[in-house]
């Protein structure tokens, strides 16, 4: 049996989902400086690709929270991969503040474009529809509007400009042979995929055939129309979860939150769980 030859993202033929070798290959296809759309911790995060981005020493990434960010952003910020963040929040949820984000902002090392969830979602929807902006009610009295020169106030509405990420990155439960990926009810991932120039997806398990032929699976699918490349990454969302397959590793999240309070602790965490690939993909 001859080994399958996988392309790199740069070599991809257009308009066809490519199957890459692994999370490292996906990370290699995300250019430095890219506007990278990432989901919240509860929504299928491609953590193994995030770790691979740190291993490949990605630089100057601009992260977009769809619509908030968690551990993935904190890791990338702590590892000096990030120049700027646009998000409605960065938090580790029950595990508390995101320590590397918090310190980077307090020390003036990270630019933050503060937003609010529906503004980001509306900005992505504007791109989905190919219109320059999307109006949003309600938020005009927030100081966010004063800080956001790109948001225009019109009467009681705020016009949020279209957001077009360079890359949408997430983890799917399945990818099939046609290049479709299944994300179930996490439809903000579809919004991000539709609005981004490139959509890169790691996945948990292979699904034979074409999921669009299955009436029950099809509604949870993001069609291959939007999927630039996928790669198999078993347990690729760990320590976050894939609903129905494995849950969030809350103990690990708490350990991370504690370790990352100091730069030294964060560095030790990286050495143990990120920079040593074998260990990071086979948690206890």
């Amino acid at each position, binding site marked *: 049996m001859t080994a399958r030859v996988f392309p790199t993202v740069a070599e991809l033929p257009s308009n066809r989902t490519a199957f890459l070798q692994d999370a490292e290959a996906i990370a290699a296809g995300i250019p430095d400086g890219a506007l990278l759309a990432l989901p*919240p911790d*509860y*929504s299928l995060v491609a953590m193994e690709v995030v770790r691979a981005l740190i291993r490949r020493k990605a630089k100057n990434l601009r992260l977009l929270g*769809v*619509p*908030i960010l968690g551990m993935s952003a904190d890791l990338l910020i702590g590892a000096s991969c990030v120049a700027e963040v646009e*998000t*409605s*929040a*960065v*938090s580790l*949820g*029950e595990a508390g*503040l*995101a320590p590397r*984000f*918090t310190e980077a*902002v*307090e020390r003036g090392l990270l630019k*933050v474009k*503060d*937003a*609010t*969830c*529906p*503004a980001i*979602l509306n900005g992505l*929807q504007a791109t989905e529809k190919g219109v320059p902006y999307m109006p*949003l*009610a*309600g*938020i005009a*009295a*927030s*100081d*966010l509007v004063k800080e956001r020169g790109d948001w225009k106030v019109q009467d009681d509405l705020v016009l949020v400009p279209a957001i077009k990420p360079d890359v949408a990155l997430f983890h799917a439960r399945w990818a099939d042979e046609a290049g479709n990926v299944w994300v179930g*009810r*996490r*439809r*903000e*991932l*579809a*919004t991000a995929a539709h609005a981004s120039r490139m959509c890169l997806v790691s996945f948990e398990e292979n699904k034979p055939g074409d999921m669009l032929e299955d009436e029950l699976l099809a509604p949870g699918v993001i069609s291959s129309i939007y999927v630039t490349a996928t790669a198999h990454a078993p347990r690729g969302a760990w320590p976050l*979860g894939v*609903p129905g397959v494995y*849950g*969030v590793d809350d103990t690990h999240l708490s350990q991370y939150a504690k370790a990352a309070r100091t730069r030294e602790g964060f560095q030790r965490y990286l050495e143990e769980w990120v920079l040593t690939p074998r260990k990071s993909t086979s948690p206890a």
Partner: protein
Amino acid sequence: MGPYAKEEHLACVIARLLGGARHAAIGASSPIPATGAFLHQQKDRTFRVSLQQRRAANPFTEGSRELFDLAGQGRIDTFFLGGAQIDGAAAINLVRADGKRFPGSFGSAFMYPMVPGTILFREEHSRRTLVPKVEFVSARGDPRALLTGKALFSWQKDKRRFRLESIHDASLEEIAENTGFAYDVSSRVGKTKPPSEEELALLRGPVAKLVAADYPDFAKRVWGM
């Protein structure tokens, strides 16, 4: 305090604020509001509770925008917000204060003005959290109430001022000492009514089970589950 947990008492106060409400959405990290909403649901079975970040059986199937779309249409009448700072004009700050950075505004800038019955909830009742004027306005709105670990305030929309309604376990002086903004005091101000036997039975029975599914650590701490 009587033979009940502080969390149980706060949940009872929240439940009592929900009379007439039809649909509460509960955001991230809100075990006490969730407990209060589930308690109210025991008395009003038509009351709907949607937990936004539910890990299993999440009610939203169109992604995170669905919560905001529902609120934009007026289909949610109850929401809970906290804040690193809350001021006397009912503005909340989730971004930065005293040189410290907080997670960010989340959906508050939209939800607070759009949801008619927003309840402000912050357990810490201090001059650090309850300030004359927030350093950054994440959101403004007209809340149904402000509940802290020490007291319950109503919001007087016409005067744009809070009014102290009841105190859980402190003196009037203690509330004044720990509140950074000016407020009125109701002529009927008194002790917050403790949980009834019936409320405690519901909390420790069916409500605890519902809460434990999404807030296991909280359920363990409060009810030893």
